Every structure is written in structure tokens, then in C-alpha cells.
């Protein structure tokens, strides 16, 4: 039988989405999560040592092979990428939703001090955020949260992987109540 790490490598190569540990384990009954994690780590080390264009990262609750950023300009010579850039205002709104989720639009606007309806619609269209539900208060406003796609785009393992906002200590109290 081939080495576990190379079997995993083949899984990663054919996966369209970040591959979860559960999925790998289900396919490999002869080993456990610990064994898979170790094999993934050694695979990751191999990619790192090789210093090639590909690396293995943990993202959106799974593992994925990605190109290193140094090769972005080369890659763009052969494939067309749709514009992913977000305006400063959109980034601000996205950051607020990411850090304070689940959050109502009025709370976002309270922080930013301006109407955010258009930006929210754009972020929804781009699947970076989603409607989580409604808050059970008068008016039943919609509440928003980031999507798994958001984690994939920004290369985050999970939402806790977001770096703590630096520089300014948080004197204010949280804007939203925790969800029930």
C-alpha cells in the first residue's frame, strides 16, 4: 500500500473544496484522525521544504492545496480572475460583520455612522455574508454573519482564526447581544 501521506495528497489534488478531516477519515478506515493529522503535517513540511509554488494550508475547516502568493502575477498571465477587490467601505463593513457576528444592519450602521444597505447587498451577492435569521425584537430585523466562502477567500481556518484587532483597546461594550 502506498504511504498514507501520498494517498492524502491525491485526495487534496482532486478536491474542489477544502477537505475535512472527517471526510479523509471516512475514506481511510485503517487509520485514525491522529494518524491523518501527522501525515498531513509531514506532507505540509515536504511542500515547505521544497519551496515550490504550492503549499498545503488549513482553511475553512479543512485542508487545501494552494499556490504561494509569489506566483500570483504569473498565474494571472494564463487565467482570468474576476475582480475580487473590495472597496475600503466594503472591507470595513465586512470586518464589522466578521468580528461582531451575528449582527443587525442597524448595529453595523451605528458603528460606521452611514447607510450600509448597498454594501450589505453587494456582500450578500458575492456570498461573503449570509442572512442568519431574524432577531426576535420589534421589527424582526435581519441578522448577518460571514459565510464559509468568506473563510476560503481570506484563508481563515475558522472565524476564531481572525486576528485580534490591534492598536486600539476595546473600551466600548459589545454592540450585539450574543445569540440565543
Amino acid at each position, binding site marked *: 500500500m502506498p504511504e498514507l501521506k501520498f494517498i492524502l495528497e491525491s485526495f487534496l*489534488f482532486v478536491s*474542489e*473544496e477544502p477537505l475535512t478531516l472527517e471526510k479523509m477519515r471516512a475514506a481511510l478506515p485503517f487509520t485514525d484522525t491522529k494518524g491523518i493529522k501527522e501525515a498531513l503535517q509531514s506532507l505540509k513540511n515536504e511542500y515547505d521544504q521544497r519551496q515550490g509554488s504550492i503549499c498545503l494550508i488549513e482553511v475553512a475547516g479543512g485542508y*487545501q*492545496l*494552494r*499556490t*504561494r*502568493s509569489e*506566483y*500570483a502575477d504569473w*498565474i494571472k498571465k494564463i*487565467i482570468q*480572475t*474576476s475582480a*475580487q*477587490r*473590495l472597496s*475600503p*467601505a466594503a*472591507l*470595513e463593513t*465586512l*470586518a*464589522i460583520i*466578521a*468580528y461582531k457576528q451575528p449582527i443587525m444592519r442597524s448595529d453595523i450602521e*451605528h*458603528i*460606521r*455612522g*452611514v*447607510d450600509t444597505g448597498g454594501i450589505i447587498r453587494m456582500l450578500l451577492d*458575492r*456570498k461573503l455574508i*449570509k442572512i442568519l435569521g*431574524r432577531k426576535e425584537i420589534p421589527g*424582526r430585523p435581519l441578522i448577518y454573519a460571514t*459565510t*464559509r*466562502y468568506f473563510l*476560503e*477567500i*481570506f*484563508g*481563515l481556518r475558522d472565524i476564531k482564526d*481572525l*486576528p485580534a*484587532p*490591534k*492598536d*486600539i*483597546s*476595546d*473600551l*466600548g461594550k459589545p*454592540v450585539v447581544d450574543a445569540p440565543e
Partner: protein
Amino acid sequence: MCSDIYKVQLENIFEGPMDLLVYLIRKNEVNIYDIPISMITDRYLDYIEWMKSMNVDIAGDFLVMAATLIQIKSRMLLPVHDDSDEEDPRQEITRPLLEYLQMKAAALQLNERDMLGEHTFIRSPSKISDPGTLPDHEIRVDIFDLIKAFQRIIENLSSDISLDVVADKLSIKDRMIELSHLLKEKGFLIFQELIGNAAGKADIIVTFLAILEMVKRNAAHVIQRDDTDTITLYLNEITHA
């Protein structure tokens, strides 16, 4: 002071009152924990005045903030009793400012990350531009969850506010002018590309009608190639002056 304000506007367009406030605080190198409220309020009002003089429509948000600042300023003038446990009136503005700055910093941090499709790529890059096929977390529900969900939808149906978005009205005349500019620039236009770039159904129709009108007026002619089906629009040389 007036020239000061002019400089402000030339380098910056403020999206909202918070943006403006942050700018004033940074520009005047003010300690955010000890804002000289009188000075900041004056600068803020100067800016509002200036916007008015430039006939800029001042959003209500800017005026609300102006009122808040003036209110804080007036509360600061009231004598403070040492034994009172009232908090500094400036907290009303300091707290949201800090939070806003924190989120601005967080946005910058997000922006510094390697973005998929921009800095880093996966093996099937087509997926990046088509998030529609991406399911979010897999969820497990039974039939009763579905029924409950359906009931909720039905209940909410009547209370939901529908939003009418008014489409930008582009006239055929405007589009004709636009097209002839483009034609003068490029020499020819591919019909399919014009339609492909259109923003919506109305846009497509306006573009289509504009082309027909131009052909009718002999301002342009259209050629369709047999082999590729490409429809190309050419500008007619103006023979009659």
C-alpha cells in the same frame, strides 16, 4: 481657516460623519482619550458650513453628529460635582470612535491577507468566480424542522417589506451619444460585447434600440459575419457636413 477646509475636501471624500471625525482627530493630532471637544466641534461645523457653501447635499447623519458634538460641548460647560459619578460626556463620542477605529484597523488587517483569486489560487480557479455552487455548512434537518421552517416563512410572508429598486433610466439618446463616442475611439464595436457589458434587461433594450436608431439615421452600419455570427457595428463616414 478657510484654506484649511479647502485642503480637507480636496484630499478626502468623507463617507460619513465618523470618517470626518476620525480625520479631524488625526489631522489635529488630538488624544482620542481626551478630545478637546470645543475645538473639534468648531472644525466639524466649519466643514459642514463649507459643504453647504459648495451646495453639497449634507446627509442627515452629518447633522446628527453635529448635534451630538454640540450637546457634549454644552454638557462640558456645566459645573461638575466631584462627588457625582456621572461619566465624562465625551464618552458618548469616544466610545463609538474607538470602536470605529478598531474596525477600520481590522479591515486593514483583512486587506493584508492573501486573498483567494487575487494572491493565492486553487487547482480549479473557476470556482473562485462562481461562489454560487458553494454550499455553506452542511446541515442536518428532519421533516419537522422543514415544516417549522415552512410555517415561519408563511408567517413572515405578510410582514415582509418588499423593496422596489428604481432602475437608472438611461435614454436611447444618451446611449447613442455614448456609442458614437466609443465608435470614434475604436472604429468598430462588437454587438455581443456591448450586450455582455450591459447592466440589465433595460440596459440591453436601450442599447439595442440605440443601435437600430443609429442605423436608421445612417450614422452607423452593421455587418454580420457568416462564419462567426459576430455582429459588428461601424461608424459611417459623415459625407454630408
